[in-house]
């Protein structure tokens, strides 16, 4: 069995670069996104990124606040009950980050089209309104005819639109559990991670738990991301923090607000970088930032029972650390 476990720092060094097209995001703006991967990209100083954020999350918020995002395609860009994404919005309003708006459904369909390698996806939404007419890439054309061009149904002669498809160079996908080959289980809404995993050129998993492959063989219908499309796996509990992960931990309200407030200014962002990005390298250092008391509280999620069937296959940290050394 191929062992694809590598460290977070290795994964970011190997699979990200300045100016790349990078996809991330998961079930909801405050949910199971690979946030820690974005922290490491920030630590390694990636710039000029083209993000495909589905949806927006603190990862997008952080990278945009740092001025590292040249362009982002997104459906929902905010943080839901935690308000607008202040770091992102600062970058958008200043013109530093180009934002290309679609609906959430359109983003899902565009991943589907990328996964199928279609040249375009039929569009029945985002039409006849400003998502069609306004293009961040072509701001001087209004209404823009190039972003979602018109096509004709060859059967009925009716008009509809066409979306361009999404084929990110790399996607960092958060999963609840993975085996060391890269077969992965997501609990909770899979959002568009199934399609994203097939649309991306390369997939890096960010896994909260590493399990023995016996788990996958008992529950193969749960394995929606397959080792066949996975390049590398990063083991990182609390990877979505301060966001939440179904079955594992709730959203950290305090840090959600603190982080968003700090990212609202350049000074705050610099401080955030010091305190919550440069301040850790290991999983233990990262967890110390969250704090054991808070971890206990957040882990007491009402969804914890969803993990019960799988606990017996979870590998211990020392075994995973040994596998990382190999990988």
């Amino acid at each position, binding site marked *: 069995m191929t062992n694809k476990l590598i460290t977070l720092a290795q994964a970011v060094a190997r699979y990200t670069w300045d100016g790349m097209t990078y996809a991330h995001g998961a*079930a*909801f*703006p*405050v*949910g199971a996104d690979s946030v820690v991967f974005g922290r490491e990209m920030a630590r390694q100083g990636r710039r000029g990124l083209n993000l495909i954020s589905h949806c*927006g999350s603190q990862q997008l918020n952080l990278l945009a606040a740092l001025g590292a995002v040249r362009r982002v395609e997104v*459906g*929902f*860009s*905010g943080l*839901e*009950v*935690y308000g*607008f994404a202040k770091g*992102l*919005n600062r970058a*958008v*309003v*200043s*013109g530093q980050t180009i*934002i290309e*708006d679609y*609906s*959430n*459904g*359109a983003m*899902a369909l565009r991943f589907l089209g990328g996964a199928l390698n279609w040249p375009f996806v039929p569009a*029945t*939404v*985002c*039409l*006849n*309104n*400003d*998502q069609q*007419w*306004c293009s961040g890439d072509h*701001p*001087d054309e*209004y209404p*823009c005819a190039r972003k979602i061009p018109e096509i004709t149904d060859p059967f009925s002669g*009716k*008009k509809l639109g066409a979306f361009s498809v999404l084929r990110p160079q790399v996607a960092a996908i958060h999963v609840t559990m993975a085996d060391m080959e890269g077969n992965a289980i997501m*609990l*909770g*809404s*899979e*959002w*568009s*991670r*199934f*399609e994203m995993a097939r649309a991306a050129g390369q997939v890096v998993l960010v896994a909260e738990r590493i399990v023995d492959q016996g788990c996958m063989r008992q529950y193969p219908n749960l394995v929606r991301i397959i080792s066949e499309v996975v390049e590398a796996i990063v083991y990182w509990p609390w990877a979505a923090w301060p966001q939440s992960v*179904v079955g594992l*931990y*709730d*959203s950290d*309200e305090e840090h959600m607000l603190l982080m968003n407030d700090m990212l609202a200014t350049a000074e705050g962002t610099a401080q955030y970088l010091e305190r919550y990005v440069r301040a850790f390298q290991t999983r233990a250092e990262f967890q110390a930032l969250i704090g054991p008391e808070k971890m206990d509280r957040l882990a007491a999620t*009402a*969804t914890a029972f*969803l993990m019960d069937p799988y606990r017996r296959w979870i590998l211990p940290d020392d075994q995973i650390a040994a596998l990382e050394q190999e990988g």
Partner: protein
Amino acid sequence: MDCTRQEFMAIATGRELKDGELAIFGVGLSMLAGYFAKKNHAPNLRAFTEGGVFGSTPVGGLPWGIECTRLSANATSFTGALDALGFLVASGRCDVAIIGAAQIDKYGNVNTTGIWREPPWKAGRYAPPRVRLNGSGGANDIAVGAKRFIIMAAHDKKRFAERVDYISSPGYLSGGDARERAGFIGGGPSAIITTLGILRPHPVSKEFYLDAYFPFSSVEEIREHTGWDLKVSANVRVVPEPTEQELANLRAVDSTGSLRKK
């Protein structure tokens, strides 16, 4: 009755939903309004959110997100966005939906994307906004596809504009048959429920008029807080107060009291 305006709005919104309907709820308050309806009078409402969370009722208060842990503790199914927004909503299958609005115009077009000094339709150019909002999220898919949808918004003059800066989620576009000509499969907004009253679209012109006002408000107050010359129904009525049971059911869903604030 000891009930906030937001609670009144949520209950008035929930009353628009009927038992047995297939319904999708957007972020924040609209979710509370929707799950209130399921708890109160529509036990067989087939409710879901845009991440494909089915069969659930939020626990622990206002969900942090459209499919967060508070919504995921008692679901019967988790699928994904393609299923919820594509197969069930954009397809035209969904009966009813609830969405929010940052800015809204007299034809029920919704802006949740940004506020401009000079909006794109006026400038003929798409410059960065003065204020960036959240984007449409799934609301555009809902506005295009749902058989009908209900818009919730705090009622003030800045929000209720003659014309929105940016159409994130289409209502009746320029009114009349404009929506029909656009070929959208869904029927459009059936009501705007505000913190002051209820607006509904004229069957022909599709311009929203005042249908009813909350007991603590008035026709004058509402007209004053609306950015266009709001027409008033000849039969304008007062919205019935929430019953004790309605309020109890709402508060059972909103267990952290997010609608009781302010």
